[in-house]
């Protein structure tokens, strides 16, 4: 027995234990479409109209986006263009990649494969190389390679899961390229879980009709990211860390010609001219849309959305945000951290305060999340934590009952470790979960080669929209950064080989500022955000900006 739970929570755990044996033999029916539509409308945060409004300026004016994003999207730049001397170019490149996570690093490697010399590439990244949501993805990566499966079936699953809002050509690229990328991973030496015949052990995910998810324990993203980064190091790709882009640079025709980057430690700016520029800055979980906790990386502040939008790239599907059904709800120290979907893939069931099942464990993510919210706030069958948060149980010990002792420890080492640190043994006790802000479904518009409508600018990974429509399925984000990182690396390299070095201006920043004034936007905010604010209230109240370090 572990002592991580207070007594009153133990009482609920006892109810859960009393139904476990029976539940081990039962599956909860999947929801018919009519019921899930209604559930989403009533309980999913995306459907709360007061959480968003129309964008007032720019290429996607009139479309809806979350208020937390609008606060930054409709704000002037961090910099005043008049302060910047663009006459001195610090880096003159073929290819500038903004963002050193999965997408950006894959793009660099494939650009080299396309003939661009590493010294003509620069990855400029806000934190360290590899610091990204890619590193944190646990569950796995989808690719249809089994006999009973096909890329077409993969397409169908993702299109339905995305509520038919995915851009067909992007989804086609995702699913058709998938097996080839897994092959690339084998060549790079990425480790995947394999059976005794050395075939991949593949699991189902929410909304998938086949066993298609490849994994490396519950460290899949970390394994991919660390190997891809290792390869970039072997190939000598230059990386500038703690150097985020703060604005793109454009020429007189509005084509992107590079970026202004910032040294976060000296506050000095660098002017980068590039024939091709790639935005691979990731998502925006750290904006805490609708005050949800997030599973995202510290740097996930949506900077690329802001910079790309200012330069004229439309946004799509920004009105939908993915709340992962299973964020940690207890203890407080791990609030919002991801509990991988793999826990449900291998057999854990969501259970309410009375020890009852209430939803199939593997509905698409938005449906599953909405069912959890309904259980807690619609039916009042959640479990309240000592700090007043609500959640439902995820019956992890059930996995060992179904699949044999040791399965949890073997398949979920990262999860077991995380809970053990706080005195909870998830092989013996269930864990408490509630939806957490997990993924930015929408983003910058791209074509199937990863080109944005703005010449010279490419984008890949979570910063883009369209691949997943309004709801991404599990295992498709690791796949996304590989497929589109590769495509962007190739297409940006091709573009760079014919483009002439461009003129450098910040005209688009000035025009955007004017558009904000014309629309009557009045704000004290500046963007992009770069680093989220978590300092204590008391300290901030007494904070003096006396410029000792300026």
């Amino acid at each position, binding site marked *: 027995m572990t002592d991580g739970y207070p007594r009153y929570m133990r009482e609920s755990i006892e109810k859960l234990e009393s139904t476990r044996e029976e539940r081990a033999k039962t599956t909860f029916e999947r929801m018919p479409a009519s019921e899930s539509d209604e559930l989403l409308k009533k309980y999913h945060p995306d459907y709360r109209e007061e959480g968003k409004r129309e964008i007032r300026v720019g290429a996607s004016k009139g479309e809806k986006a979350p208020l937390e994003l609008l606060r930054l999207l409709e704000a002037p730049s961090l910099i005043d263009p008049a302060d910047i001397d663009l006459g001195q170019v610090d880096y003159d490149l073929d290819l500038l990649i903004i963002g050193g996570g999965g997408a950006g690093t894959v793009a660099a490697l494939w650009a080299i494969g396309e003939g661009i010399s590493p010294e003509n590439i620069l990855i400029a990244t806000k934190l360290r190389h590899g610091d990204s949501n890619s590193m944190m993805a646990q569950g796995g990566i989808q690719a249809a390679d089994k006999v009973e499966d096909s890329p077409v079936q993969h397409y169908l699953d993702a299109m339905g899961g995305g509520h038919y809002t995915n851009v067909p050509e992007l989804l086609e690229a995702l699913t058709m390229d998938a097996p080839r990328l897994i092959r690339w991973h084998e060549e790079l030496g990425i*480790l995947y879980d394999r059976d005794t015949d050395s075939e991949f052990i593949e699991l189902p995910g929410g909304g998938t*009709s086949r066993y298609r998810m490849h994994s*490396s324990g519950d460290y899949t993203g970390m394994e991919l990211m660390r190997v891809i980064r290792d390869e970039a190091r072997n190939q000598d790709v230059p990386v500038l860390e703690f150097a985020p882009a703060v604005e793109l640079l454009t020429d007189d025709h509005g084509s992107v010609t590079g970026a202004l980057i910032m040294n976060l430690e000296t506050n000095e700016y660098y002017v980068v001219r590039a024939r091709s520029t790639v935005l691979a800055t990731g998502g925006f979980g750290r904006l805490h849309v609708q005050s949800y906790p997030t599973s995202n990386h510290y740097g996930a502040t949506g900077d690329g959305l802001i910079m790309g939008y200012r330069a004229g790239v439309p946004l799509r599907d920004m009105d939908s945000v993915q709340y992962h059904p299973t964020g940690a709800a207890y203890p407080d120290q791990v609030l919002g951290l991801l509990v991988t979907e793999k826990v449900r893939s291998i057999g854990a069931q969501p259970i309410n305060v009375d020890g009852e099942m209430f939803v199939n464990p593997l509905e698409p993510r938005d449906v599953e999340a909405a069912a959890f919210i309904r259980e807690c706030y619609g039916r009042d069958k959640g479990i309240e934590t000592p700090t007043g948060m609500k959640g439902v149980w995820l019956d992890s010990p059930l996995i060992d009952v179904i699949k044999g002792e040791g399965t949890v420890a073997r398949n979920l080492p990262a999860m077991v470790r995380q809970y053990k640190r706080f005195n909870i043994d998830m092989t013996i006790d269930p864990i408490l979960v509630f939806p957490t802000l997990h993924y930015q479904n929408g983003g910058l518009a791209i074509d199937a080669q990863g080109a944005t409508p703005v010449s010279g600018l490419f984008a890949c990974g979570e910063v883009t929209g369209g691949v997943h429509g309004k709801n991404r399925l599990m295992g498709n984000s690791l796949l996304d950064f590989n497929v589109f990182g590769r495509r962007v690396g190739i297409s940006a390299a091709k573009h760079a080989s014919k483009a002439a070095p461009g003129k450098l201006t910040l005209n688009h920043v000035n025009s955007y500022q004017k558009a904000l004034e014309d629309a009557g936007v009045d704000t004290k905010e500046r963007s992009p955000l770069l680093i989220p604010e978590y*300092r204590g209230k008391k300290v901030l109240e007494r904070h003096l900006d006396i410029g000792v370090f300026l």
Partner: protein
Amino acid sequence: MAENKDEKMIDIYVMGRMYRVPEGLTIMTALEYAGYKYVRGCGCRGGFCGACSTVFRTKNEYKLRMDLACQTAVEDGMFLVQLPFVPAVRTVFQIDKVDPEEHDNILLEHYPEIARCVSCNTCTKACPQDIEVMDYVQAALRGDIDRTAKLSFDCIQCGLCSIRCPADIKHYHLAQEARRIKGRYIDIHSQQLAHRIGELHDGVYEEKMKEYVSMKKEDIKKVYDKREFHKEG
């Protein structure tokens, strides 16, 4: 973070300076509560990236301990400092030239300092992931790449092992190379994947894909709603 009245406050010492913070915070959230805004020393905040290595000792304890700031709760009387960067050297290699069949001991070739391991086990004690670090260094020394890869799999590359090592071994870089060699050369690559790639090369799915891509929403919805689920993998 909760700032309610009845929370218990404790004292922690950040690089020697005392701050009073609520009990129950992690080292990371406690530093933020105290007024620190991270640039370095903070990454995924979930125990996966190794950015927030922290060296500390607790009250009445003489031993230095090491752990991740995002995964460790503060304790009353804790003295701490963060270690956001490790200047460890890494050997550059080409993945298509490290076939273990063609080398005596490729890991020893690339990291000869592993021969200096004195089996003191300090690396293992320093590891926030509870990895048997010394055991995998010994496995590497014996040329057992498979074991080195397996034992080191949970490594988040924080570098605490290498900072503590009296023999200046670069454990986490060595282990990364071992895992890549296993993935590339020791694990047998998937036959079914090779078969599927052959099919894709022959354009087997193109026609069906074209049909789906051009389908109207109502039509593809019908196909989706009639999908059959495979019960087993």
